[in-house]
């Protein structure tokens, strides 16, 4: 693919969309058509998302359990997460996400362990509640953990084991915090349902348990940052230098004690809107703590986000310190961009990942002159594409209705009138709260937005656009590289990173430079490819 030479505009993708849909059975084509949108940032466009995946289509998506246990609860180190079900569910979520954590030399850390009730057929027939009870007791006796979480899997939901009742009973018996999650894999339509269920569970059972003032002048919660490849460690350093107390992070490098104290913060900064906006909303409803959307993926985005946080606290010294950090860090950023951009400028990328990463990483690619010709989420909702302004118009279907919405009431004893007043005064000065514009307004005209992309669509897109790099996950990695197109894993960073903050941006520019400019792609055709005589001789002797 190339852009129009005169205007440098992306081509209209309607031919491509038609070709993609032509292959599908008509019902499938009709359904998929609503999830493929040729973008126009100037107008409001609707994209179908957060709906059921079509059976057999080959999707990237995982399940509710993966979103709950794997994504949200996985990165917290001082909780024993017991998966109630057959062995596989716990096995596959064992150390397969790269959430780093720093427990110090002797802090509690169960993240390297895998706990399961390993349900057998007799348990499925006769019920597994007794086994779960005993497993919780054994975990307590061996480890004496701070807390225990219990995760329900598909067959558990079907046979009707009540993980909540068992958790309540054992909490009483053992006198530590124990709570359950009904995150059976069949709930909802993707990991997204699991995020919501996890948010609800932590909010109900953990947040607000400890009213101790965490201390400090500026108190912040960082929401939706999972410390993949050490991202949180980078950000923690900036906050420390700025004099900001990071009360809790949901949930990179986190502990249950931090969550218990989260309602004592002055501001919630939301990184991954999709996975954690529920907690931000609930903290505001219950305690009056406002939230803002920030993004630490991209150097400019990091600078903007740090400034936005500093501005909230309305403190001259803090703002000056922030500018000092930005100025200092941008030196390396700019020097790297200058070097890398000469080799990356004008190259094309595509991204199909997550519920915010496909948006955030466009910033990073943009900083080294690379253009995003197509992008989409694996489990995003319409608000992640089109902005929160469409929230009220999203129809609640049967799959979403099954996910509980907590009824949050104001906590009079821990209500922050001061923050409510602060929000109003800042809003009057044009400071935006509770806003997320979504991905589509940030994308170029004619770029192709695709929700829950299928393998077939990926193939056609590669043929049509011939991108220089694609960002997706492990399942896509080697498929796409077989085409001779490098794939950057944006869940696991290909075991590199960190990519957050200024340091992370520098790492990312360099990694992308290496990937798109590595010599190996040039070695794919063997030198005898164009020497038919040689090929013929070899073929003769080989067979």
């Amino acid at each position, binding site marked *: 693919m190339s852009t129009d030479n005169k205007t440098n505009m992306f081509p209209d993708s309607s031919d491509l969309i038609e070709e993609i849909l032509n292959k*599908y059975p008509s019902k499938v084509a009709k359904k998929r058509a609503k999830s493929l949108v040729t973008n126009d940032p100037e107008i409001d466009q609707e994209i179908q998302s957060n709906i059921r995946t079509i*059976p057999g289509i080959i999707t990237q*998506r995982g399940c509710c359990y993966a979103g709950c246990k794997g994504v949200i609860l996985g990165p917290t180190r001082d909780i024993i997460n017991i998966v109630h079900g057959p*062995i596989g*569910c716990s096995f596959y979520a064992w150390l397969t996400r790269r959430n780093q954590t720093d427990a110090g030399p002797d802090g509690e850390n169960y993240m390297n362990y895998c706990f399961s009730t390993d349900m057998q057929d007799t348990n499925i027939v006769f019920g597994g509640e007794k086994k779960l009870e005993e497993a919780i007791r054994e975990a307590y006796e*061996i480890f004496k953990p701070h807390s225990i979480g219990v995760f329900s899997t598909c067959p558990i939901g079907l046979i009707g084991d009540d993980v909540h009742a068992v958790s309540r009973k054992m909490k009483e018996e053992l006198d530590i915090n124990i709570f359950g999650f009904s995150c059976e894999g069949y709930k909802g339509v993707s990991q997204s349902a699991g995020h919501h269920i996890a948010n609800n569970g932590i909010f109900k059972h953990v947040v607000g348990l400890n009213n101790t003032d965490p201390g400090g002048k500026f108190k912040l919660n960082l929401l939706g940052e999972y410390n993949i490849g050490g991202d949180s460690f980078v950000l923690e350093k900036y906050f420390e230098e700025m004099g900001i107390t990071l009360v809790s992070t949901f949930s990179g490098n986190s502990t249950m004690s931090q969550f218990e104290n989260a309602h004592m913060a002055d501001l919630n900064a939301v990184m991954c809107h999709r996975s954690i906006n529920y907690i931000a909303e609930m903290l505001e409803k219950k305690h009056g703590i406002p939230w803002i959307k920030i993004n630490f993926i991209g150097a400019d985005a990091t600078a903007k986000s740090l400034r936005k946080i500093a501005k909230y606290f309305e403190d001259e010294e803090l703002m000056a310190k922030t500018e000092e950090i930005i100025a200092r860090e941008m030196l390396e950023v700019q020097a790297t961009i200058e070097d890398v951009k000469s080799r990356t400028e004008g190259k094309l990328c595509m991204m199909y990942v997550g519920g915010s990463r496909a948006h955030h990483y466009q910033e990073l690619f943009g900083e080294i002159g690379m253009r995003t010709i197509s992008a989409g989420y694996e489990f995003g909702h319409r608000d992640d594409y089109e902005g929160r302004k469409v929230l009220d118009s999203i129809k609640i279907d049967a799959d979403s209705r099954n996910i509980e919405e907590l009824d949050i009431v104001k906590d009079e004893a821990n209500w922050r009138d001061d923050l409510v007043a602060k929000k109003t005064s800042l809003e009057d000065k044009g400071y935006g709260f509770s806003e997320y514009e979504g991905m589509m307004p940030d994308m170029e005209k004619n770029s192709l937005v695709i929700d829950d992309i299928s393998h077939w669509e990926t193939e056609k897109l590669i043929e049509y656009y011939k991108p220089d790099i694609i960002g997706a996950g492990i399942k896509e990695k080697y498929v796409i590289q*077989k085409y001779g197109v490098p794939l950057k894993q944006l869940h696991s960073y290909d075991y590199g990173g960190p990519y957050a903050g200024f340091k992370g941006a520098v790492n990312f520019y360099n990694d992308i430079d290496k990937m798109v400019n590595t010599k190996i792609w040039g070695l794919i055709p063997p030198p005898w490819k164009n020497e038919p005589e040689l090929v013929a001789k070899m073929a003769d002797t080989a067979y």
Partner: protein
Amino acid sequence: MLLRHTTKDIKERKSLTINPAKTCQPVGAMYAALGIHGCLPHSHGSQGCCSYHRSALTRHYKEPIMAATSSFTEGSSVFGGQSNLIQAIDNIFTIYEPEVIAVHSTCLSETIGDDLTQIVEKARDGGKIPEGKHVIFCNTPSYIGSHVTGYSNMVSGMVKLLSKSTGVTNDKINLISGWVEPSDMREVKRMANLMGANFTLFPDTSDVVDAPQTGSYEMYPKGGTTIPDLIASGDNKATLAFGKWATEDAAIKLENKCKVPFEATELPIGVRATDRFIMELSKLAEVGIPEAITAERGRLVDMITDMQQYLHGKRVALFGDPDQLIPLVEFLLDMNMKPVYIVSGTPGKKMHKRLEELLLPTVPEAKFQNGKGADMYLLHQWIKNEGVDLLIGNSYGKYIARDENIPFLRMGFPILDRVGHSYFPTLGYMGGLRILEKILDLIMDKQDLESSEPEFELVM
């Protein structure tokens, strides 16, 4: 310490598994299905199962692993997954055009009682399976057995739904492969070809999950056992099934269905298990054992005799699957090493019995357990009580190895952090050389790293 909460103090656990030495059935079924040419595996359950299994296999092979899912929702879990599967079959044949779809169930579809036979029949009656195309299936409830059981069930599914007997016997044998790497399947074919055997190997993942980089993606790479070969397996004169846990059931089913007699051997790992495999192969295929094979055997025995001193008496802990562990233990014993601790999450009393036979005469102190309670946490606790010189198992062993400073040989599934297993075999005599080379590298590297300067040696 990475596993800082693991202590010496072993408490009995009845219900809690910690750090399992197994995973669930469907991933094995998915892997086995990839060994059929032109096959798209299909997971009949929630999306997460398919996603997890594809991810695990992709990380292990660093290769495309394609599979589809029935994408169950809460509704399908209540009303049954029939319409999801029929729709999936229709979509897969229309969009992805495989020769065959290999469906396996999950704990979800098993618990609600979906009947795969009936659903596939309905798909056929409804015209959703194009002429000349196939849908095979097997039941893989995750709450029975382990990933090895799932592999076995899919291989049995191939026999049950494809093998046919025409009444005319072929001068050919079936080689039914246990759960091994594509490199191992390639090695078995090399040995069999060297012996002049006429055979069909199934499943065969070589040239599927080790495909070359050509700049173009092939959804169905050239490898895999073809459907005509699988159908004709019912006419072959005999079957040699290697890796009993993964293949014996299929061999029995083929005998019952098509009267093909069989022998089941252990995986040819090490000297004696390979000896037995080669002799069975020679007998069933009615071919001689060529000098080239004898020479390979000689090279392996030669290296063991040469390097005896580094191996003798070394204490080894192992975890993994019965088919690998049993011949591996025998191989270690033949090298005068001491396999002292062995765990496998895969159940089956035969494993315990076989290990007793192997270990009691020379390593009576050995502790071994499989099935219930046999997890890596227990293995680690045994090691904490008395240490070992070598640990062998899948990538999860690296946490124990680092905490306890034990040289660590990666073998088994999954290997997530190293490459090579898909390219270099551990089966056969040549595979034995590779295992031995790796063990020696580990032991000698440790000696080089830890010996004092005066004791540091050039020649070893």
